[in-house]
């Protein structure tokens, strides 16, 4: 077994809806190894996106609600600034609804993470984004706006964006959920290729057939992960 890259231990997360506390995660344990493709399967509202956000440092677990660590370092021990850097350099997010900025062109969207503090910088980001977009078959779309693209093209742009800072981990939240079967398969193929180049990937989905393509799949049921 390769080294342990991401680890969640007994993670609890509760959301407050009005006056009611809704526990979403109730003690999740997960170990992600370097180079692994892990799928997390769960029904809608089971908390799989929440888990992904926690792993990506976009959200924090409840107080005394378990630990998440990356390469042995607790995310809860990081300062806000260090956590921003973690999101910039260590993880890349891919979302179901692409989440591209409508005012920016395809190229600008893809290179955006390179421009934040901790990113690779404007020049390197431009080179890398152009290369990735070219690899994803979007070289003729660089100056287009997201609204001019098809769903598949948008998601490819979003994947290029997630990879522009060359993070070791990719977190994909239902990346094919908004696409037709054919396009979805294409995106999955792209993710597979990327994974094969050494990227660690955590993908959450409600679709069993997609989860089956992963090295390993876990089920999120009642706020806990099971094999």
């Amino acid at each position, binding site marked *: 077994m390769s080294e342990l890259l991401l680890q969640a231990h007994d993670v609890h997360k509760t959301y407050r809806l009005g006056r009611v506390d809704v526990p979403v995660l109730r003690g999740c344990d997960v170990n992600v190894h370097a180079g692994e493709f892990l799928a997390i399967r769960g029904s809608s509202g089971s908390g799989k996106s929440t888990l992904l956000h926690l792993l990506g440092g976009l959200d924090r677990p409840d107080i005394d609600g378990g630990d998440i660590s990356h390469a042995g370092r607790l995310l809860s021990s990081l300062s806000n600034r260090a956590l*921003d850097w973690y999101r910039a350099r260590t993880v890349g997010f891919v979302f179901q609804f692409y989440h591209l900025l409508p005012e920016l062109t395809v190229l600008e969207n893809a290179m955006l993470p390179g421009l934040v503090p901790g990113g690779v910088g404007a020049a390197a980001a431009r080179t890398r984004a152009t290369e990735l977009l070219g690899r994803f078959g979007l070289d003729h779309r660089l100056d287009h706006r997201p609204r001019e693209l098809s769903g598949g093209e948008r998601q490819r742009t979003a994947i290029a964006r997630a990879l522009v800072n060359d993070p070791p981990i990719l977190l994909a939240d239902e990346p094919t959920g908004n696409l037709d079967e054919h396009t979805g398969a294409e995106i999955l193929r792209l993710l597979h290729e990327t994974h094969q180049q050494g990227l660690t990937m955590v993908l959450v989905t409600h679709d069993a057939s997609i989860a089956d393509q992963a090295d390993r799949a876990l089920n999120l049921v009642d706020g806990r992960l099971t094999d």
Partner: protein
Amino acid sequence: MYQPLLTSRYLSTRLIPLLAVLAVALCVALVIVVVSVMTGFLDMVRTSGRTLMGDVVVSYPIRGIPHYEELIEEIRALPEAVEATPVVDTWGLLRMPYPAGDAKESEQVQIWGIDPSSFSTVTGFGDTLEWTSVPDDSAGLLQTRLIRAHAEELAATLDASAHVALLRATDQGELDELDETTIQNLASQRPVDEWAVRLRWLANRPDLVQEIIGEQAWTDLNARDPRLLSSEALVNDGLTLQRNGRPAMVPGRHVSKANIRTSDGTYEILQNGYWWMPAFEGTLTTMPIDSRGGLLEPESIVLPFANEFSSGVYLIDKTRLMVPLDIVQRLTHLDEVELVDEDDPTLVVGTAPARATMVLVRAVDGVDPLALQAAVHEAYQRFSRQTYPDEQPPTLELDPSLRILTWEQQNASFIGPIEKERELMRTLFSIVYLVSGALIVAIFWAIVYEKTRDIGILRSIGASRSGIVWIFLLYGLAVGVLGALLGVGLGWLVTSNMPSIHEGLTDPPLWLGVFLLAAAGCLLIWCVVKSRSGRLLPLLLGSLGVLVLGGLGLGELWLRHAGGVMLWDPAVYYFTEVPSNVDWPSAWMSAAGAAICSVIAAAIPAARAADIDPVGALRYE
């Protein structure tokens, strides 16, 4: 840095922030225009002071300062002073040459007896003279007069062909049936005296006379009034207060009711240039007061007008009349006289010296008027402590009506309120920044709301909270700076075109109304076409546009029909011109203020943006 990229994109791809830019620009322009006009007004007051009165004034009204020449010598010796000049001021009546007939009008005037040469050095009098050449319309009047005055001389120089031409020109129909030879015979038989009569009769048509007498004689005739040949003569008349060697007077431009200010700001002279003052004389009457304050017999003098002056200050141009000093001294009994024994009027017991009610002093360039004032004060002390054979001048210690003041001090009651008004205006109008600030808060708040998802995305790729704050601060700064620059441009455009805008209001051009109505018509057609799609917003905006443009167009045409509005009536305002110079320091201050206000206003929505929970934002659809 991703903030500049996002800021520029948010600015260029959206309409709402441009509205914020426009709001800031309008606020800045408003403040610039108001403050510039007020500052220009204040500057005009200040510079006009120097133009009209020099820098420091020693005044002792009514009784006048005796031995003022000695005082002037003392002041001239001061290193701070360029020149000092005596003035006698009094009030009087000026009987004007108009209208034709015996019932002439009179104007109340403030008479200033001046010594022209030193007065021009102390004040800017020479530059305010109105006439540098005889207006074309008025030249004929002068020529008519010359023909009448010199008819006999002219008649003597006429040859036979000129006689025939003159006979024909003054013909009453009796020559109609006669042949050429008979007419020539007839002309040769007329007595010499008759040619002069016929020339006088034709004097109202100087162009005909010119033809008859020939170019050489015509030029010789014109040379008798130097003003017709050289423009210097007219200016010189004004500067020396003389006309044809006679003492003359120079009234302000608005003293004569024959000078009419037209709506476009230029002047015209009544009856096609006939009532051009320098062609006429007026009668000046004063009421001298004796040493006990009692009224003496009125004094009168007939003086020709030499020129007119225009200081730009309406109140002064309306009332002031410049007259040679010695004449006013006589008219006010402030001239040097022999004192005689009460019982035996043949026995001279002494003299009373000539007096001046004011001494105006001009400072050397760069010398503070207050420093000059102090120096003049000391000079006056030296002057008043000397011993004079007949009468001692008043002393500063004992005579409260003797005053040495700078022009600003003398007019403090006038300048003070203007300064206060300007500051009040500045403060009041700066409140509009709060309006633009509130607008920016509202607009940015809406933008943050709309951009919630973007904020989530940015956080997910590693943007920090402070990074998000900077996006909106930079955005606010961009809106503020753009708006401020636009506002400065707009303010400059309006301020520097103030005279033409004013002119446009007093005499609205036809094309503008037609253009506005045509634009409204085009928009109406567009509206009708657009309304087919059934969408309400373009229809509403279009209709509003039609209403506004059509209303403006109709209003403009109505204004034109009604004869325009004169916003800056020189009779109401102190100055005859609208100030049109931008007060740049205060313009840039306003611009900077607006930019800072924008950033501060943007900070509120920016803080809200930073507080957005990224997870919630990403779920936000």
